[in-house]
């Protein structure tokens, strides 16, 4: 299908459209009210403490940022690798990536101890910090997406589509590397300090981003009365199947490597022995619900050609992804820091014990705010711009 032959249309701004936007705005307002309370009182009202310093807001934020990178999969496959079937969806791919990224960044900023010092974060840089690099990578990706979308929308610039697509692909790979490196560079933590964190986060982004894209596409088509053909939907599902399997492979490689080194046996037992909450979340949530069940739905002859199974599977991948983030971010902090290897440690500062963390409503509100803002960007974009093709039905067989 040539780009020129694709007809795009905005979503009809009917009652259900405005109702959805109003609902998302409501969630955002409630979340922002929660933020004001948190900002006024301080972080003691949350479940975060001096042992678990990053909580639910970071689970949501990192998930959204990683998913943003992966939401560009379709754009990359269309514009860089020339797969015609995905070309009509490249615009949605860019819009969704921008929305997810903005939502994730809002959460990160609102959870800062001093969100009022955002200007400091934008003007003082320590370039040895991967965090500082990520500030450029995140805001830079928004600029790259803007360039890519401009090229897509301007027929006169069509010949630059591949170049813009390559720029976006490289930028997001570096971005996800940087996000994984936030954890990979933590030399003293048993659960982190691993180079595999960077490629693990890249493949997680492919999986989570594709799952979100698939659901948003299906919802947008359903809401606007468009027919989403089986061919396109199942093609996305097949892509997702590969990514979910690849994430499992990387997780397996991570744990096998750790299990080979005796010094990591404590942490591995903590995550794998099915005794701690994090271990149960790992096996039941991340592996079972988030990986094996979707794979069964995607592969099984009875369900692999079922649209509902595909949508359920993609939803499970997102749920499993959030749980995986929880296990990585919270579990990695909850496991006690080892100051004296081989010794038993105790203190008034919770040395030698698994740190407690009970998420608070305030943290969930921040997370929901980020999700709502992401969706507002997407819904508003779909309503204002010709993002979604008018026809996404299966191509008719030649007579």
């Amino acid at each position, binding site marked *: 299908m040539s780009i020129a032959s694709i007809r795009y249309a905005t979503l009809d701004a009917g009652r259900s459209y405005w109702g959805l936007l109003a609902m998302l705005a409501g969630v955002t307002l409630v979340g922002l009210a929660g933020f004001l309370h948190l900002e006024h*009182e301080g972080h003691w009202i949350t479940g975060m403490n*001096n042992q678990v310093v*990053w909580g639910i807001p970071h689970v949501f934020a990192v998930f959204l940022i990683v998913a943003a990178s992966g939401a560009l999969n379709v754009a990359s496959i269309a514009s860089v690798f020339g797969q015609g079937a995905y070309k009509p969806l490249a615009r949605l791919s860019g819009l969704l990536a921008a929305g997810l990224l903005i939502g994730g960044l809002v959460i990160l900023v609102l959870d*800062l101890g001093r969100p009022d010092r955002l200007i400091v*974060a934008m003007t003082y840089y*320590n370039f040895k910090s991967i965090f500082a690099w990520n500030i450029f990578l995140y805001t830079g990706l928004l600029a790259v997406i803007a360039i890519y979308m401009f090229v897509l929308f301007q027929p006169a610039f069509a010949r630059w589509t591949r170049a813009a697509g390559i720029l976006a692909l490289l930028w997001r790979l570096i971005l996800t590397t940087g996000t994984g490196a936030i954890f990979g560079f933590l030399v003293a*933590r048993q659960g982190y300090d691993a180079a595999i964190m960077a490629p693990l986060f890249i493949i997680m982004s492919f999986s989570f981003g594709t799952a979100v894209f698939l659901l948003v596409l299906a919802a947008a088509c359903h809401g606007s009365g468009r027919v989403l053909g089986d061919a396109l939907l199942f093609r996305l599902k097949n892509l997702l199947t590969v990514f979910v399997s690849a994430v499992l492979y990387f997780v397996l490689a991570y744990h096998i490597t750790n299990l080979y080194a005796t010094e990591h046996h404590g942490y591995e037992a903590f995550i794998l022995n099915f005794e701690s909450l994090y271990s149960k979340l790992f096996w039941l949530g991340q592996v079972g619900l988030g990986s094996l069940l979707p794979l069964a739905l995607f592969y099984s002859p009875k369900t692999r050609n079922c649209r509902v199974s595909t949508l359920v599977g993609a939803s499970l991948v997102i749920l499993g992804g959030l749980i995986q983030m929880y296990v990585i971010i919270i579990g990695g902090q909850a496991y006690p820091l080892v*100051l*004296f290897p081989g010794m038993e440690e105790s203190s008034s500062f919770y040395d030698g014990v698994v740190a407690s963390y009970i998420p608070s409503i305030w943290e969930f509100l921040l997370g929901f705010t980020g999700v709502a803002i992401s969706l507002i960007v997407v819904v508003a974009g779909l309503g204002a711009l010709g993002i979604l093709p008018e026809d996404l039905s299966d191509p008719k067989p030649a007579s």
Partner: protein
Amino acid sequence: MSLDLTRREFLQGAGAAGALTLAPGVFLYAKDPKVPVTDAVRWGLLVDTRLCQEDCDACVTACNEEHNLEDLGRPETDAQWIRKLTVRDPLGGRTISLPMMCQHCEHPPCVDVCPTGASFRRVDGIVLVDKHTCIGCRYCMMACPYKARSFIHENLTEQLPHAPRGKGCVESCTMCVHKVDAGENTTACAEACHKDGHQAILFGDLNDPDSEISKRIREFGATQIRADLGLNTGVRYQNL
């Protein structure tokens, strides 16, 4: 230009000695501001665990009083700049007690990861947090191998001029930089330990071969905690 250089130049330019208020919470100390901090010295602490009593927390109490760290009754979020750590060897059961605080590393992971440069190391070895540029991201707390840092989870009142603290920022042991800059040549924890007769904590210049701390390290040796990380800590321990 690094932040500490800028600050030093600012102090040099200010030119006034004595306790002068520059702005709320920003003070000049009695140290002659024309004399910059120098790497000719490296301040450090030496802890002899044989002399450290398990049931004694004089160092902790002294630090809390020196910097007005309050017990708010929320141990999970209350700030602790120094804590007593009990370490037991499961083989044989030998137990030692020691104070654990910021180890004032030569290569501090907290400084490496801080996005704004708020975490910084003075050239005399003291690792500090600039409370004006800390955005409260807590990445330094994730990176610190010693769990030495605390995040301020609530509004604070009655902070002391020499220990500016505030909600939403991260803080840790300053090696009593206000005392060091005032030429007192000690820290609250070392002073309290000495006063209690244990003398388990010794403050001094690690670069001066004739200082008491250097002599003791030379004679009896000293260990870094997590020496495998290669951080070259300014706090050393004996008889671990």
